[in-house]
């Protein structure tokens, strides 16, 4: 599965995804693994925070999904938060942001 994710990311299939925060089941599973495993290396697998900020719903309540999606795509300059543009599409970022705010799937 994760190998497929990598291939998908590498060849940019993601850019073909429909816009909006709904994702087909497979892509949703790939993004869930990406967030738990690879965002998790800085934010913690449970998203309680680590070197990166906590990303639980209570922590993000004040922030709207589009600004979070923008952070995911463009990073936070001067901090370790990297820009994920190129690895995740705008639709992916939006999907991640909305699900972070709702309580991220396991």
């Amino acid at each position, binding site marked *: *599965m*994760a*190998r497929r994710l*990598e291939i998908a*990311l*590498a060849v940019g299939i993601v850019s073909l995804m429909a816009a909006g925060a709904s994702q087909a089941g497979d892509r949703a599973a790939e993004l869930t693994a990406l967030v*738990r*495993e*690879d965002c*998790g*290396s*800085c934010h*913690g*697998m*449970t998203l*309680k*925070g*680590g*070197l990166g900020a906590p990303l639980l719903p209570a922590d993000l309540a004040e922030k709207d999904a589009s600004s979070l999606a923008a952070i995911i795509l463009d*990073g936070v300059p*001067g*901090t*370790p938060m*990297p*820009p*994920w543009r190129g*690895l995740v599409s705008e639709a992916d970022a939006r999907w991640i942001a909305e699900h972070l705010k709702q309580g991220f799937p396991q």
Partner: protein
Amino acid sequence: MNRRAFLTAGVSVGLAGPAMAAGAGEACAPMRGTGDLGLIIERATGSVLIVDVGAHKTLSRIEGLGDLSHATAVFGPSERYAYVFGRDGGLTKVDMLACRIEKRVIQAGNAIGGAISDDGALIVASNYTPGGIKVFDANDLGELASVPAIGANGKPSKTVGLVDLPGRRFAYALYDADEIWIADFSAGMSPALTKFTNVGRLPYDANVTSDARHYLAGLFGEDGFAHVDLWADKPEVTRVVSGYNAGREKLPIYKMPHLEGWGQSGSTLVLPAAGQHEVLLLNLETMREEARIPAHSQPVFCVARPDGREVWINFAHPHNNTVQVLDVFTRKIVHTFQPGPAVLHLEFTPRGHEVWISVRDADRIDIYDVRTRTKKAEIAGVKPSGIFFTARAHRLGA
């Protein structure tokens, strides 16, 4: 290994079959030494594998250690007890002979790693929330001291890069305060603190050379390392290997580089660049940069073969299926291979005949012959990450 064999192996771990009688206090081996035991973190399931390194075999799977993403372990001097530091602030003492949890405490909200004093008496945890370090009795994990990390900026800081130094001392860096501290517990549990300020922006990890002389903290907010010569009468901080991003685009870093297990090779230290697909060679005699070697991607761990001639390197997402071997003597990458999806960690056997590689997304640990660089065995594990062999018990700063 073919797919069916892999699945079978995976299942036997999942069910903890009879060969791995887990938990409940029964000895996993009737009578044995501990010098060839290892502990492997299964990050997602909060479990660890106790492995027989010589036999390439899992002896036991121990569960109930909490959130083990980014977990590390240290060993007591008898090589019987492992102390596992979890992300959720859990500190667990594991009896590797009885294959069970001896004691477990939740010592902080969010932790990053730990160390053990040279006499084996003190376990120290390094924390994110709240920041600072805490000291525990190695026997019963009773808390002995808590040292907040309030920097000169008045803010509590995450602590990173914690290492032990001779004489019940510990060095660590303050990520949010740009400082390095040395805490000396030789006279009791109210430590004498030596503080270095303005060491450079956002120290993210650090390590010390095996002679306890050079402490280096990697900086994230600038391209360089903060260096303290601990042998000096009056140690001070200097900046070394700085400016490696100058005039070049700093590439995004999808996983922080680590200095744990770094590649010390004689008088050369092999360091991961932050923001370049390179490793940086530092000469420890001159403290000058010797070379920059282009690598496959953003390096994460640069681990020296125990004799030092080679350094094996793994990489950040999304190029983390690859490992490269640098010959430090000729300064050439001599081998590149793909163990599998998401290579998270590497550990050499104490004298370097094998290297064990955790391949997270394949749910296995691969065992390579180091001379021939061929795979000779594998062990199943659920999302394995850190691999720790007991020989670390007798390595300074490890």
